């Protein structure tokens, strides 16, 4: 079978019919990694036991043991999620040799469902970035054009998926880190509702915004993965006990009568013409499928990016305090440790351990939380955040879903924005709002730029309304000119 263009369900069917073995599937993707990863730099650590674990699935299959929906499916995991016995670094020098003694809940649920972990995927250090250039492993390349960024921070996940180095991947999204790289690489990415997916074992960047989710080849695959990883977790107090629908089984292309909101603030110019065209195309297609297009408004959108950077940096400054060289991870070497002051110990260790962007955000966050500035920055940002969440609620009173761009423009050149962090930050304008409001977002392929770079569109739904979002994505997948298009690597 053509594994390159097979959905997870297709592979599963072949596996159950014994037309292919789990080991063969894993070996197929391992060979693709061997052939292409050096160009793309998506995988940074491999699971040395992948083939053995794949064989285990075969044996279970032979014994007729009950197997989960992801049996034998080779997946790649962003290096932000802890994997037992497999090095997990957050692409940071400070965790360069860290091997977790446990699996993140997302990882253990994937494993329980039969998935085979192929290895760990590149990212921006501690998920701080939109280009995957801030990594100790070096930049990940966009498989559509190796001179371009794959987006970030889950750039490794999106690039690996786009070039089919595995059957599915997991990314994390704090301000767009799943959706934006999915858009840049022509794959499907889901940022679930905050609380839908456990954060236990996900290295924390900004705890009130972080969510892990799938980056996959198609909407069906994303729905299936989401279904497996979602649900209450006793180890994460912020997970919801909302029932998890069978997203993949419930997929329904009949979207007639749904009201799709076009957000005024997202269409006020400044968009790359090809992005604008892509949105227009999607709108036409949705109308043809019987959807009603309505205008909605979230006036606080203009404040979303500053709000996001204040809150995310504040939480990050505290979350990253644990990396101090005392218990695990990088410790600077000292001529005479016992004569070294504690302050010097911390400064050298953390000074060496963190990259430029991480240090920038730690400093920004520390400043925002400091006495005298707290009220004006962190507290104010949290207040405005609540107001913006209310504005989103108002939108969902008059529409089912919000349609918009993922990014102002397609992928940019590697190095192009490195010296201008502010312009990099402003790129996140369409994605950070979903994290601030806690609502789910979906990015699906829908266009391509004149430079042959993919362009995705974004759908946002109300809290825990992922099914509706996936259904519309499923329907749009039929009309999208980019569906199943794979770059030549």
């Amino acid at each position, binding site marked *: 079978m053509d594994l390159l263009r097979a959905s997870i369900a297709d592979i599963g069917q072949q596996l159950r019919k014994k037309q292919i073995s789990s080991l063969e599937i894993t070996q197929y993707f391992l060979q693709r990694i061997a052939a292409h990863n050096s160009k793309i730099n998506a995988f940074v650590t491999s699971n040395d036991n992948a083939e053995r674990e794949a064989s285990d699935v075969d044996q279970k299959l032979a014994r007729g043991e009950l197997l989960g929906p992801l049996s034998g499916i080779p997946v790649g995991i962003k290096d932000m999620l802890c994997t037992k016995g497999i090095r*997990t670094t957050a692409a940071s020098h400070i965790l360069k040799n860290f091997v977790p003694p446990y699996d993140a809940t997302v990882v253990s649920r994937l494993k329980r469902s039969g998935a085979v972990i192929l290895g760990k995927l590149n990212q921006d250090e501690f998920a701080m970035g939109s280009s995957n250039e801030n990594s100790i492993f070096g930049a990940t390349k966009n498989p559509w054009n190796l001179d371009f960024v794959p987006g970030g921070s889950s750039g490794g996940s999106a690039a690996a998926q786009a070039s089919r180095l595995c059957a599915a991947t997991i990314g994390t999204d704090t301000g767009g880190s799943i959706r934006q790289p999915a858009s840049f690489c022509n794959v499907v990415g889901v940022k679930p509702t905050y609380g839908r997916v456990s*954060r236990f074992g996900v290295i924390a960047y900004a705890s009130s915004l972080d969510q892990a989710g799938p980056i996959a080849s198609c909407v069906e695959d994303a729905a299936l993965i989401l279904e497996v990883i979602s649900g209450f977790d006793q180890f994460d107090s912020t997970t919801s006990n909302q029932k998890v629908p069978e997203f993949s089984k419930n997929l329904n292309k009949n979207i007639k009568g749904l009201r799709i909101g076009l957000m005024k603030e997202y269409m006020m110019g400044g968009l790359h013409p090809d992005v604008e065209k892509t949105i227009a195309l999607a709108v036409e297609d949705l109308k043809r499928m019987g959807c009603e297009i309505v205008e909605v408004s979230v006036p606080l959108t203009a404040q979303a990016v500053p709000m996001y950077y204040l809150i995310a940096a*504040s939480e990050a400054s*505290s979350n990253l305090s*644990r990396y101090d060289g005392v218990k695990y991870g990088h410790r600077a070497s000292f001529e005479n440790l016992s004569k070294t002051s504690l302050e010097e110990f911390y400064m050298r260790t953390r000074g060496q351990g963190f990259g430029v962007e991480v240090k920038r955000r730690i400093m920004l966050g520390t400043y925002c939380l400091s006495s005298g500035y707290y009220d004006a920055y962190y507290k104010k940002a949290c207040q405005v955040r609540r107001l913006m969440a209310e504005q989103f609620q108002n939108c969902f009173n008059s529409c089912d879903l919000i349609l918009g761009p993922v990014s102002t423009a397609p992928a940019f050149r590697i190095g192009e924005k490195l010296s201008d962090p502010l312009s990099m930050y402003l790129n996140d304008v369409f994605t950070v709002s979903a994290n601030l409001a806690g609502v789910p977002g979906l990015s699906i392929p829908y266009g391509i730029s004149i430079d042959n770079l993919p362009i995705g569109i974004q759908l946002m739904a109300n809290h825990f309304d992922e099914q509706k979002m996936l259904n519309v994505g499923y329907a749009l997948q039929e009309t999208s000119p980019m569906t199943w298009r794979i770059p030549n690597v």
Partner: protein
Amino acid sequence: MYRGYEAVIGLEIHAQLSTKSKIFSEDATAFDAGDNENLSLVSAGLPGALPVLNRKVVEFSIQAGLALGCEIRRKNTFARKNYFYPDLPKGYQISQYDEPICENGRVIIFVGGQEKTIRIIRAHMEEDAGKSTHFGEYTLVNYNRAGVPLLEIVSAPDLRTPEEAAEYAKTIRQILKYIGVCDGNLEEGSLRCDCNVSVRPVGTAELGTKVEIKNVNSFRFVEKAIEYEIERQVDALERKEKIIQETRLYDSDKNRTVPMRTKEDAQDYRYFPDPDLLPVIITDEMIKEIHLHLPELPSARKKRFIEHYGLPEYDAIMLTAEKEYADYFEATTKISSNPKSTANWMMTELTRELNQANIEVDKSPVSPAGLAGLLKLIDQGIISGKIAKTVFNDMWSTGKSAEEIIKDKNLTQISDRAAIEKIVDEILSQNSKSVLEYKSGRTKLLGFFVGAVMKATKGQASPDLVNQILLDKLKR
């Protein structure tokens, strides 16, 4: 009063809540575990680890709050207190900041026979840090304590003397132990005090500059540290020096306080709500339920002991000082039906043996039923009070019942009139000179005769009967 100055003292007491597991993880809180044995990925602050609140901590805090007369906050949030130190695994401590679970309480203390009400400003839940031990050139960190639940109880500056401060701390300990939320074990660090001390000229209302003495771990040291600090501050003021707002440490070996850090290098803890924990909502039903099952507090129990058992106030105070002690009393009295003799025996024999053996009353080898059995034998005239003391000692060392011991050693009191009369006759005939002296008016000699008879009967004669017979015979 100190040379025209008065002290203003407030205490912050960190009480370890005696839950089985830590506040945010399933790790045990056992004190005697090996180094870094109680260390899950949450306690170690591993990447990706998340805190999950232990419900028991909230219940215990509500219990403590109610016992201390506090209002209980219905919506509770946790905050992160950020600072770097090797024994703080996450680089922040999870605590409560501006919204503590308990507020506006009060306790009554007794100092010099006087009642005094001390207000409690707040009490909040937080996690403990680990423990650093410095060995000359290097430092070892044990994270067993990291994540152990604490309730920090902050008093108003209502205390005026070191004795009051120590008494307040003792009262808090007594109450927490009574309701079973803290074992009150000072050696194991279950209760630690920070003392805020300032002085001002008597008659002035304005507060002096405050100095904080950190981590004092015994009531005696609370008293001594504050005593030293008051004298130090008054000395300074008399020399026209300014008191510096600072944190000091108490050196118990040298009995003095030494500077630790001044306000200038006070840290900015950058408190903010912990996004990993949702707000904890406490319902009226939950409070009602806990209130219903709150054990009787020491002050109420003391009052009841006086009214119900007819005990003198002194006895009631002694017996209710510790819950286990009061429980022992009530269990014994229930069987012995003699509250006063139970009280007497507990406050003398039992207490002495407990102290000597250095054990708690609930570990006593003589059980309430055992002591009650002994007291009943006395009341029934089967043994004398004097014999009972040796029987008690045997009970203590062998664990046998009073009846068994009396039987084994043949200690039953001689109540046979004829037998005693025979011995009395012998004694009187052997001491005819003393008999004459007695009859001529030296009636004090009665004691001598009683003693001799008791000696001859190895103390088994009924003292009442001996007296009676002697008086009778000496009259003739």
